[in-house]
């Protein structure tokens, strides 16, 4: 079996997560990825693999990495804080300053150590990232979300944005 350069590139993408965007020059990686239900997503100067719409694993399918309900809640709040304009793509969004953890803890009315723990989980799977100034922003894994997921969140964006305000008001 002859292994092509593109196949090696796709294997690198799967095993390493990212490769420099310039590595794709002159290859047919996009077509090869599409043939196996994937698409290539560009993040600044890197690229990564994402599922094509309709090819993502079924929720009821074989067990794979999942996110707990509270981690999903923390992410929803982070998304509501960072993704201000639904006309834009959710990633990269607006970074939160150094008080990001305290702010999320205040919104959820939970101790900051609890929030810190779940943010660490999100960070481990690429759904949240630290900023240089000690703040927080959305992780690059969000750029790989299937278009239908982003479209649904865009439709319900008002809930994301309003939820943080409701929590803040309700907590007072």
């Amino acid at each position, binding site marked *: 079996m002859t292994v092509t350069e593109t196949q090696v590139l796709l294997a690198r993408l799967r*095993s390493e997560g990212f490769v420099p965007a310039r590595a794709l020059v002159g290859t047919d990686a996009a077509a090869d990825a599409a043939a196996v239900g994937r698409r290539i997503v560009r993040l600044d100067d890197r690229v990564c693999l994402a599922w094509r719409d309709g090819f993502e*694993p079924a929720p009821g399918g074989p067990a794979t990495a999942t996110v707990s*309900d509270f981690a999903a809640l923390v992410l*929803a709040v982070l998304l509501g804080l960072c993704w201000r304009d639904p006309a834009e793509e959710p990633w990269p969004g607006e970074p939160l300053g150094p008080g990001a953890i305290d702010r999320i803890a205040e919104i959820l009315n939970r101790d900051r150590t609890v929030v810190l723990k779940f943010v660490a989980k999100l960070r481990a799977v690429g*759904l949240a990232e630290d900023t240089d100034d000690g703040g927080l922003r959305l992780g690059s*894994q969000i750029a790989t979300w299937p278009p239908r*997921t982003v479209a649904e969140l865009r439709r319900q964006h008002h809930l994301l944005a309003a939820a943080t305000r409701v929590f803040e008001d*309700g907590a007072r």
Partner: protein
Amino acid sequence: MPRRRRARTSAEQRQLLTDGAEVLGPFVAPMARDAGSVVEELADLEVARAVVECCCQPDAAGGLTLAEIAARIDGAVDPPELERRLNVFVGLGMLQPYEDRRGTGRYVLDPRGLAGVQVAERITTQGGVSELLLLLDRTAAAIRASAATAVEVRAALERARLFFSLFADTLARKTRLGTIAELYDEVRGHEHQRLLVTLDELTKLVAATFAELEPLAHATLLEAQRYDRWLGQAAERVVAEAGAARDFGVLSPEAWRTAAIHAPWERLSAVAETLVFDAPAPLLSAEQLLDALAHWRPSPRQRQLPPGPQITSGPDPLELRRARREQRRERLTLQAESLLQGESSVDLTDTLRAMPWSAAAQLLADTLASGRDPIVPTEVVIGDGLLADPVLEVAWCSTPLTLSRSGSSTATVESSERVEVQAE
């Protein structure tokens, strides 16, 4: 001068032999007329096994015709091939004519045919190991039962030594020259056998019973140990080469299953050390995010406690309070003594009327306080009369206002403190 014919190599020999001849040939050779008398395929044994099985059924006691046998095998074998094999079985007497009044078209199975099929099965699967084990067991049982003579035991030991020698030579040859598949087949034939343990027991029995045969038993044991060494080397080669080649076919499905269940996880995980795979991205749907928001209810905030009192260092405030109270009590006593002027009782009405209003109020308050204090030995009684004079600052007052000495006080300090607190 005629040229000597070159001996065949083992590879050439294998190419000449068919599947069946390779396995069964050495066993059948002592009885065969020529090299072509062995079945070509091991699958032909299945035909014999099927014929034996249908002839052993209870309803076959009266014999079966060849057509009935063919019908019972039910198309599992090609009909012309089945007919050819049945003719062989009849020709060699494995199927014996069952002669009765109904004719000679019916056949029954000769018991030696059943034994032959079983022996062939053992030869194909275990290569004679069972025969050796049977020989050792039977000899040991005969010695225990005192039914064996020295001649019989000697013969059995020599035969066992020959078996071990042949097994060792075969394993050595296949370990050096054989393919992994051949070697694995050979090793599998020796799995789970208790040859060495049984031989060890037999050797002890021989030494105890026939001391003159002990050297022969020892020589047999040495040959058995040589066999065991070659068996170990053969197994090592199978594991090393098949492992390096990722050849899953060298182990049976049951062996893989056993390894998966019982092998240490470190050994199992080592298999995937060099595999490349991607870490799975977490599955997160829009519904999950929105559900998390919809079902989240912030818990009510806890009521915060007021800050704790700031305790400063200094004199005890209670002691200060007691000291102030004693001073006041002393002042009231002195004031009462001053008003009484040594008398036991005095009317203070005129004294009050002669004073400015504010001074009169202060004196009246002090006098009433001394009257209420159980420690200060005075009593105060206010009469029902009323004096009014608009010219004076104290324009009116009750009369008489009698201050009198009350003698010794019976009240305790505690009750006085209680009264003090109530007054405040």
